[in-house]
């Protein structure tokens, strides 16, 4: 895994037990449009949290922000996705979002842990810079302690 990834995870207002959280597979990115509805359209058979998560991913062009190996600098592509995410979050001010940072799997454990935290912090700071209230965004790191899925959103009920 050459690229490292950073996972943007929307979490519910009420903290949910980890066991209740769900993972989604890769989603097809779509450009956000100015005509995007502020609320997700419910899909039959889909829970409201799933719908919210799917909408976030679709509207913001992805939930995964990539960095160069060994770097916590935001790339132009990363800024594009984060800008779209910030737009969605400003439209959904009651939905807290959690940024989860990952290190490089071939790094040593503690450096990977700090690198994941640094990357998560960079992404969070950029969202806040773009007008997302800081209380809406939390950040944490998995280092290399969890295999990072290529794209994932978790929304607690």
């Amino acid at each position: 895994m050459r690229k490292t990834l950073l996972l943007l995870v929307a979490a519910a207002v009420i903290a949910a037990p980890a066991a209740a959280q769900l993972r989604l597979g890769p989603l097809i990115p779509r450009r956000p449009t100015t005509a995007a509805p502020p609320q997700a359209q419910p899909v039959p058979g889909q829970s409201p949290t799933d719908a919210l998560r799917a909408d976030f991913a679709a509207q913001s062009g992805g939930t995964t922000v990539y960095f160069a190996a060994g770097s916590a600098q935001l790339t132009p592509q990363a800024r594009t996705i984060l800008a779209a995410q910030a737009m969605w979050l400003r439209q959904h001010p009651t939905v807290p979002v959690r940024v989860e940072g990952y290190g490089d799997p071939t790094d040593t454990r503690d450096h990977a842990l700090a690198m994941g935290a640094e990357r998560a912090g960079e992404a969070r700071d950029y969202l806040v810079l773009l007008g997302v209230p800081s209380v809406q965004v939390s950040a944490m790191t998995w280092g290399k302690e969890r295999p990072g899925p290529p794209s994932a959103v978790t929304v607690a009920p």
Partner: protein
Amino acid sequence: MTPRFARILFGVAIACVSASASAALQPGAPDATVIAIPPMTTPDSGTKGNEMLAVAWQATQLIETDLRQTSELMALPSDRKDYYSYPEVTAPTFRKWRDKGAKALITGFVKSRPDGRYTVGCYVYDVDKGRELGRIGFVVAPSDLRRAAHKCSGLAYQSITGSPGMFDTRIAYVAETGAPDARVKRIATMDSDGYNHHYETPGGTIVLTPRLSPNANRLAYVSFQGGVPQVRILDLASGEQRPLIPGGAMTFAPRYSPDGSKIIFSMMLGPNADIYVVGATGGMPQRLTTSPGIDTDPSFSNDGSKIVFESDRSGTQQLYVMNADGSHQRRLTFSAAAYATPEWSPDGKLIAFTWRSGDTRRIGIISPDGTGEKLLTSGPADEMPSWAASSHELIFQRTETYGRPSLYRIALDGSAPRKMTIPQDGSDPDWSGTLD
């Protein structure tokens, strides 16, 4: 829980080992010192005598097993039929052992006591010179016979190599079970020979990097329990725990000072990981590094006066050494590869590290003055070396080709790494000093 271990009879005679005697035994010579281990005996007679002879034979086998793990000593096979009388313990027939090629000899006795415990005595001799190198004695409960034997092995090892033995030591590590995407991680501790294996944390949360206090009664480790990684202190006897410092900041990479009074660790504030020191029982953390970037994996020198750590302030991870108060920071490694997870050896002479280039991680050593760099393993995924008390051997984590981590030990003499037997996968090993 910790067994009371009464040292008696001879006091500490290890210190009496003379340099000339050690030299006669060629310490550090490429070929190992041959040591004879005649069966330990007993002064008891009758039924009790037979019972104690059996116990003494167990102790003999334990010592032989211990010494066979070292690269410096070569144990002659013990033979139970090779009966050794009690007077011979203090007056060995040196000629007999010289003829068998032995340069050293360890023997001793086990004596029963009215209270049910044993008196164990061990003696180490220079066979060529026909003189005693050291002796040690204990009163132990029957369940502590293993520890007494480890202490005897340690006496032989120290008498011959001049370095502390690593037989009566503990190892802490992270026990890993379950599928790759749902690993269950628990802190585990065990004796260095694999006995007395315990799980110290329940496994519901991710745990990392256990680090034993010098006397192995406490453990500093990192837990994801509070959402972000934070250092916690666990009292191994009582099971009580507490966060190292209050507050919600991310803290990681803890290590005890050699005297156990302080803990150094990294704290993440904003995009910066810096190194801090705090009293082992609490207090106000003191910041030691301020450079931008990630400063982590600090390790005290054996005298506590210096700290080696890794920093990516130059762009890649490199090793740095500073005084214990954070002053006089200087870079130790200067190469295109990355250097990480340094640990200072107990004798102060070497620093072990993880070498990283591309996707390859290997274990290496370097002198504290930056000379003598040498890679010991071939990788491709080795990391987190921790020194044995002898400073002649390291334990480390190797991720096998199928992606599962195991614990290995490797001696500095160039021999191949040996996989350790543990009940499941294991990572992040930490090897304690010799226990009191």
